[in-house]
């Protein structure tokens, strides 16, 4: 018995004395029998265009910063960080304490679009958050 099976529809006989083939050999045999003309992917006259967004908007070069204020409760700030960033309590508390003790905390470094999104989310909760270019 050969070590592999060839689908009968191909009509190719595999001698028994051949050494065991590689796993993909039956597919190689299949493709060897199917000579085709390659069809070009681009038809004449077609111009391939790719929309390129401004580089500055895609690179993760923007910081989401939360600033300290004396009005937002510490528990509330922790809660908002957990909701907006889906952080663990430990991580959220770490950043909340950083805001409280150092006046600010960098919460994320991301692309401009994502940083804008996070700032908007934090401001929806009335937190003092901004985005700054990472220089």
């Amino acid at each position, binding site marked *: 018995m050969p070590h592999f099976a060839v689908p009968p529809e191909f009509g190719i006989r595999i001698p028994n004395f051949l050494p065991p083939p590689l796993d993909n050999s039956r597919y190689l045999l299949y493709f060897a029998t199917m000579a085709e003309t390659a069809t070009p992917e681009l038809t004449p006259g077609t111009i391939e265009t790719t929309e390129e967004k*401004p580089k500055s908007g895609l690179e993760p070069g923007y910081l989401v910063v939360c600033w300290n204020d004396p009005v937002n409760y510490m*528990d*509330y700030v922790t809660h908002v960080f957990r909701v907006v960033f889906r952080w663990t309590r430990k991580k959220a508390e770490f950043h909340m304490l950083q805001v409280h003790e150092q006046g600010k905390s960098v919460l994320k470094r991301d692309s*401009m679009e994502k940083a804008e999104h996070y700032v908007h989310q934090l401001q929806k909760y009335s937190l003092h958050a901004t985005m700054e270019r990472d220089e």
Partner: protein
Amino acid sequence: MKLIRLTKGNFLFQFGKREKHLLTQVLRLYPRIPPATFRLSKSGKLPDAEANQRLLDESLAEQREQNRKTLQAFLADARRFTDTESGSRLSLSPSELEWLLQILNDVRVGSWIILGSPQQGIEFKILNEKTAADFWAMEMSGQFQMRFLEALEKREV
């Protein structure tokens, strides 16, 4: 006000008669944060800074308007609060609770801004007849906020 039952999709609070009145009074103050308070950037070193700031202002204004309408419907819904002998009960879903936290914090932060954004420890120096109502709104919204946060904590335990 206390949480009396917590199920997967629901928080049930018991309010005293006066507490219900206080909560609705505080909520009616929304929105309190003046428009265009928040800045997108502190340094201003962003591409298209003005246009992006305008977009943020518009987006927050839209959000505020939507919240205002939802809040009106919330307050007008007579079935929201179920009267009991000792007061009334309020049932909230987790997303409603999250939304109420945003509303209450707007009232708190907005009142603080109206008071002149006083630093911690000196705020009571400016407490007088003229500022008493804003102090009341700031402190009362904060009290409700803390009770709701405590309820959310219990969900995690």
